[in-house]
């Protein structure tokens, strides 16, 4: 496997006495869409600011493109495009002029502005003043600015935050296109799980400054094994007793139904037979794949206990 694009080693970060990041070890593989997931206040934005040297890491804690961040900052930032939290846009300038400000700092040819405007689909509105832009357009303009240098790595902090559904879909398509067609590695933070689920190839879950999981998206789903069976029956407590005697753990029990994690579908038939043999009336048997949301809640809840 080739060298990871971003690597952190035992990254700690403090705000006064508050430990915002605790031993963060990230490995972002080349060509991935890396979903960086966590509830609000978990340390996502802090991590991103450290990766961009807005907050200084200590020597040896952060390597990007295999190089020490602090010592090679200018070179590294020349290959990284970033979009951090709320958009950074000069409202009194047009979209094109905003890009021109950045272009002057990074020194790329003028034609590049038209190229990035085309990528983010802002060509028609490029000469409107940015103060008339919708939030979605602001985010796309921010992304255009990040793309000016044709970076190998894009770091996007909550890029869909505050967008309406069509804006979210548009942003998602854009990210996938940048990854697939332009070959960019994308580091993407979000607290919206379904969003990451649709995009990411790799994920890390952070909570209270600690990394709780890191690896392939499928790995996360498998580790926390697949299926959950929901049983509706007339005698819930009796059914729960029966299932416990069959060595199942009941994950949820309410007045109408029982939730039981199972490994394969064959077990549904066995459970059904056992229930019917005990003269219980089975109204409904439903299996559902555990989604990222419940996995996420499970993982972050574990920490509290």
């Amino acid at each position, binding site marked *: 496997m080739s060298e990871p694009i971003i690597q952190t080693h035992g990254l700690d970060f403090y705000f006064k006495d508050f430990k915002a990041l605790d031993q963060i070890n990230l490995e972002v593989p080349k060509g991935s869409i890396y979903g960086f997931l966590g509830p609000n206040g978990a340390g996502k934005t802090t991590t991103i600011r450290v990766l961009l040297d807005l907050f200084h890491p200590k020597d040896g804690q952060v390597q990007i493109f295999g190089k020490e961040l602090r010592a090679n900052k200018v070179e590294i930032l020349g290959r990284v495009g970033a979009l*951090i939290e709320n958009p950074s846009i000069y409202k009194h300038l047009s979209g094109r002029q905003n890009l021109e400000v950045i272009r002057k700092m990074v020194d790329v040819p003028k034609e590049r502005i038209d190229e990035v405007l085309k990528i983010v689909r802002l060509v028609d509105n490029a000469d409107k003043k940015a103060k008339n832009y919708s939030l979605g357009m602001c985010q796309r303009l921010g992304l255009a600015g990040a793309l000016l240098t044709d970076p190998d790595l894009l770091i996007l902090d909550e890029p869909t935050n505050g967008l309406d559904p069509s804006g979210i879909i548009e942003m998602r398509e854009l990210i996938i296109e940048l990854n697939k067609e332009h070959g960019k590695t994308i580091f993407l933070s979000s607290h919206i799980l379904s969003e990451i689920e649709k995009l990411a190839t790799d994920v890390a879950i952070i909570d209270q400054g600690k990394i709780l999981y890191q690896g392939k998206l499928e790995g996360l789903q498998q580790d926390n094994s697949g299926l959950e069976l929901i049983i509706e029956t007339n005698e819930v407590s009796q059914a729960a007793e029966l299932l416990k005697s069959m060595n199942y753990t009941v994950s949820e029990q309410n007045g109408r139904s029982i939730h039981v994690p199972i490994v394969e579908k064959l077990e549904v038939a066995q459970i059904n037979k056992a229930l019917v043999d005990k003269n219980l009336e089975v109204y409904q048997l439903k299996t559902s794949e555990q989604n990222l949301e419940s996995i996420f809640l499970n993982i972050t809840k574990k920490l509290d206990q």
Partner: protein
Amino acid sequence: MNAAIALKRGISAELYKFRRTFILWFLILGPAFIPIINLIIFLTRGEQVMANGGNPWQMLLQFSIDPGNFLFPFFVMIVALFVNSIEHNSNTWKLIYTQPLSRGVVYFSKVKVFTFMIFMSLMLFGIFSVLAGQVVGLLKPDLGFDQTFDKSLFFALPFKVFLMTMGYASLQFWMSQRWKNLILPLGIGIGGFISFMILSQGWKYAPYHPYGYQILGLGNLRDPEFQVWGNLEFVYRSLGLAVVVFVLGGVEKLRKRII
């Protein structure tokens, strides 16, 4: 990358972003304010002003420099606010500090543009003042504006004011960069200036007060002994303070966490 090229990029981006902003008009119209008033005074009451005779250019110079020197600190405070609030308001500190330029270059570009703006408006002030004299000379030939006069004084004195301004300008710049709040730097600046006005009545350390260098250093134009390049200690104090504050501000910016 060559530091000079990097700085050039930083400065050109810095200048570009002030397009279509109020500050550009402010930088042009601000220096025109006193010359326009002088133009009106000389056109309407020129005879009374020149009742005692003498060279009208000398009178115009006094009418320009003294009030100009008094109002200029407020102008500087507002420019310092503008060049920094453009980033505070647009959330763009994090944008400019994640571009592939070192922090020192980005910081110093802004310092350069700020000092350049102040310098240019003082030179414009000189140009507008001379123009006002020329216009009066055309419209009221009997006031005597055809007499010879060393008009370089209209630029030398503002240049000296520029040098003596750098001290408190650096303080205003530092405060405006540090705080998003607009009132705080303005309040401290006005407080600093007024406190100098009061303290200059008799406090023995008043000559060290950074908001007073340009007042004490300029000297009295009516004094027959007047020398443009006299009282240079105020120029040195101002420039010394400016170097210290700009450098410390830069060091702070290098280490600071950028939100």
